[in-house]
């Protein structure tokens, strides 16, 4: 049976951070246009990330000796959701903060932690995640990128694709095969921390349908890796990746991607909604409220050291369903034509209408998530 989630409140010491970050953001983002806020965690601003790092808002849960502040998962949650709700440009450090740092803390060697974590906490060291390949999307276990033993450690060959921010990151945590395909479907894979400046790596941005360049194709041609570039245990890549994905799937970024649009839509509708507008905006508010509580309940599981993989899959699937409905609701209750040249609302609507298909692709498709849930129900 699936694990039950219990309602949890954000504890007061974490809640205390909220006003501080809100005050900082209202000042720091004063000139940020609505359409850039709509980029949510795809907006890139290195200077902004560095400023967050200075204030101790990156890598918050990490031990102080690595530059963190030993804060709870709830404290990180408060900061994350405030950043997202404001539409702050957090993309530079987002993946490092969300999953690479906790992964390195859990599976990395002491030397790796000391080397990588302080830079992440300063908001100066950016990571991307090398999972998908041209032939391996949802079927991640079928990857063929291969690391073989070499004279100085490992030699990496293969191709990754849809790698968000590879063109602007310093490092990639790469899932690669360290054994040929075996009968054990999830065996023979390992994770490496790859310095993207190494020879033999070429990164080609892929323009998406909105005209932006967030994701990339990354080619590895005889890239030499050191022994100490292996993260965690050889052959344990699959279980490490699965644990990491729970961090990726449960957070507020699976609920709040369309907050910029909810805001412009509310402004557009004004104080006297008609019945349909009131009904739909009430529904959106109710679902945002309930899903946020669900996401906080998963954070409580993370904080308690439990494995929230199934609950995280529930949050992500319901969350992105709402996120994808918001542009549709906006069109159903108001006649604004989405346009890159119109009002703030028209621009945000145009942008998010086009961006929304990616919500249920990134971080695991809805079919994969539902498969995880079905497995927990022992249907497969």
């Amino acid at each position, binding site marked *: 049976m699936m694990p039950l*989630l219990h309602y949890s409140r954000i504890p007061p010491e974490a809640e205390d951070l909220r006003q501080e970050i809100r005050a900082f953001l209202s000042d720091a983002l004063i000139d940020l246009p609505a359409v850039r806020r709509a980029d949510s965690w795809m907006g890139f601003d290195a200077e902004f990330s560095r400023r967050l790092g200075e204030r101790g808002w990156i890598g918050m849960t990490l031990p102080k000796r690595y530059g963190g502040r030993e804060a709870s998962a709830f404290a990180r949650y408060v900061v994350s959701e405030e950043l997202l709700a404001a539409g702050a440009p957090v993309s530079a450090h987002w993946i490092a903060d969300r999953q690479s740092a906790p992964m390195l803390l859990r599976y990395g060697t002491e030397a790796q932690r000391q080397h990588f974590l302080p830079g992440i906490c300063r908001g100066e060291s950016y990571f991307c995640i090398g999972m998908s390949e041209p032939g391996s999307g949802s079927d991640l276990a079928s990857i063929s990128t291969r690391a073989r033993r070499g004279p100085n450690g490992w030699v990496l060959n293969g191709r990754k694709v849809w790698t968000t921010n590879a063109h602007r990151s310093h490092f990639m945590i790469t899932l690669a095969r360290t054994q040929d395909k075996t009968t054990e479907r999830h065996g023979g894979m390992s994770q490496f921390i790859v310095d993207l400046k190494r020879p033999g790596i070429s990164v080609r941005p892929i323009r998406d349908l909105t005209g932006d360049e967030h994701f990339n194709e990354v080619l590895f041609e005889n890239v030499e890796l050191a022994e100490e570039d292996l993260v965690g245990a050889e052959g344990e890549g699959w279980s490490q990746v699965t644990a990491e994905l729970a961090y990726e799937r449960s957070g507020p970024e699976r609920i709040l991607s369309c907050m910029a649009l909810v805001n412009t839509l*509310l402004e557009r509708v004004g104080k006297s909604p008609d019945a349909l507008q009131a009904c739909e905006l009430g*529904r959106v508010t*109710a679902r945002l*409220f309930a899903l946020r*509580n669900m996401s906080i309940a998963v954070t409580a599981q993370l904080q308690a050291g439990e494995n929230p993989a199934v609950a995280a899959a529930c949050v992500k699937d319901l969350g992105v369903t709402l996120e994808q409905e918001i542009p549709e609701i906006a069109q159903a209750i108001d006649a604004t034509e989405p346009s890159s040249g119109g009002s703030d609302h028209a621009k945000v609507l145009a942008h998010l209408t086009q961006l929304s298909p990616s919500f249920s692709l990134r971080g695991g498709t809805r079919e994969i998530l539902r498969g995880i849930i079905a497995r927990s129900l022992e*249907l497969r």
Partner: protein
Amino acid sequence: MREIFETTIERILVDHVTPALFRECAAGAWPDALWTTLEDAEVTCAAVPELFGGSGASWEDTFTLIRAAGAHAVPAPFADTLLANWLMARAGVAPAKRPAAIAALSQLTDSNGQYSGRLEKIPWGRDLKRIVAVAAEPARLVVLDTASAVSIERGCNLAGEPRDTVTFDRARPVAVAPLPDDATHAFLLLCGAMIRSAQMAGALQSILQMTTAYATERVQFGKPIGHFQVIQQQIAVLAEHTACSLIAAEAAFAESTADIAALPIMAAKICVGEAASIGASTAHAVHGAIGFTDEHTLHLKTRRLWAWRAEYGSQAYWSQRLGRAVCESGARALWPTLTQTATLIPIPAAREIHT
């Protein structure tokens, strides 16, 4: 407290709420043995302060009792009594033994301390000892004894649960207690919505379990239908909505410990109501024709889901009220509201609930 409640209620309901009991109750019987057991276990007064003879449990702990009542489709006003007893204590009277319920859809009129009104859709009105109703100007809770009613007209909701019209004509109240002025209409409606949300979350848990079990047993095309991906994916969505409903309802209870918390309750009633429609549809689709029969127990839960989602304000009702409040408060207030660092501008009822 919560764990004790959980084991106690589960044991009682598993023992007593049987297919035979549903048949007897459908024929008009009152489940006396079940009710006596619930009262003896003191769970009907769980939320009542110890001063008034209850267990003094918070709503957060009481949630599990009401969720279980929904999961078992208890054919008696157990959840309604728990709520009414809490309200009676709030009005300063010790709860009576015997069932009680609220009257959320109509207001009483007051003539020199005697109360009159036609109270509609009262759960098990025919079997109740007391009814908790409201009167306006000034807003107050009024506790009435059904012995002083002039008539009780029988009716039922679409699941066949008794919903009677109880009429009082200048009845002397058992107790009267003040309410906040803006609360008259919304207060009991919110209380009822909170209770039904938890019952629905429990019923969703139950149909998820039944549907998963059926998909594992039922063989077609040479394998259990649960082996087909298209079935797995549908049941997974039912599971997602069940998990979300449980959290939403639990939040409504937990946030209402000091006083009734409007936003969490509205959010719960809206989200759980949507989950009910998706959940019942999926459960019936997977069960096929057998689940559509009177003999199968699935409809004990699905028909209640359809009935409960409309009681004490439907999704449409609460969505409109919440939407109007959100618009009135403006875009800048939305995020502070969601994070409960600000409260919404309260909006009076958009329209009365049609019965």
